[in-house]
């Protein structure tokens, strides 16, 4: 089992594929867990619903969060996890196509660790995912579980 877990919250299948490809080619030992909407992300983090059976102490080293999600949006997911003692310190990176200032300010107000604009081009997207993975899994010291 890998040392690190990345929780990728993304509803666009193309972006999921690109992200998985970028992470796999980076040679950093990490499991990528994909949640396709905000509700599933919260179920994973709080070990409820579809993820009721998993070990809750096993928290991701970083969560990569899209904002425009079906149902519960990204900012609401962020708000929920920052309110709970078990999940409040998890590093969260918003990765979104939105440049809306209200989203940037809203993200930082809710305690996001980093905000990254999703590049449209394949090569740039792969590079960003690779950089993100290296920074948050290797360079950054994650909070202890």
């Amino acid at each position, binding site marked *: 089992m890998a040392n690190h877990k990345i929780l990728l919250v993304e509803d666009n299948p193309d972006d999921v594929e690109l992200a998985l490809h970028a992470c796999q080619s980076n040679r950093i030992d990490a499991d990528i867990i994909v949640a396709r909407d905000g509700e599933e992300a919260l179920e994973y983090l709080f070990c409820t619903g579809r993820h009721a059976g998993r070990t809750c102490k096993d928290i991701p080293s970083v969560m990569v969060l899209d904002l425009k999600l079906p149902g519960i949006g990204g900012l609401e997911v962020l708000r929920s996890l920052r309110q709970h003692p078990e999940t*409040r310190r998890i590093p969260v990176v918003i990765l979104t196509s939105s440049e809306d200032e209200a989203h*940037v300010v809203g993200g930082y*107000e809710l305690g996001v660790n980093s*905000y990254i604009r999703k590049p449209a081009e394949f090569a740039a997207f792969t590079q960003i995912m690779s950089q993100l993975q290296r920074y948050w899994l290797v360079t*950054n*010291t994650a*909070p202890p579980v």
Partner: protein
Amino acid sequence: MTKVSQVLLVEDNEDDVELALHAFSGSRVTPEIKVVHDGEEALEFLWHTGRYADQEARDLPSLILLDLQLPGIGGLEVLRRLRERPETRRVPVVILTTSDAEADIIGGYDRGVNSYIRKPVGFASFSEMVQQLEHYWLITNLAPPS
């Protein structure tokens, strides 16, 4: 004209200041580096008080690199105070320290640090880390609007 990024380096150890300045000097975006040597001066600089009371209004730094073990007001207290003030609560802060004490890591995240990095030993590793920090926080990351 592209705006020059500013990094506020809060560090009392002169050797570490020299290392960081040297590493930044070879960087792609060549940010302006403002060095302060203790926590009190960091808060004065950010809030335009004390030694910086007469300074004209300026943008907040794009990034604060914060040591924890500082004379007077320590790094965690600096972080707590700047997160309490509306004008500085969103500015990205990276703790850069030799400490791997769990209380410091938890204390940093609980006070809203963006990232916690242990200072690597050796010039080459330190330079590489500074360049990685610079690329991530000054190019890739979208800072909150001032």
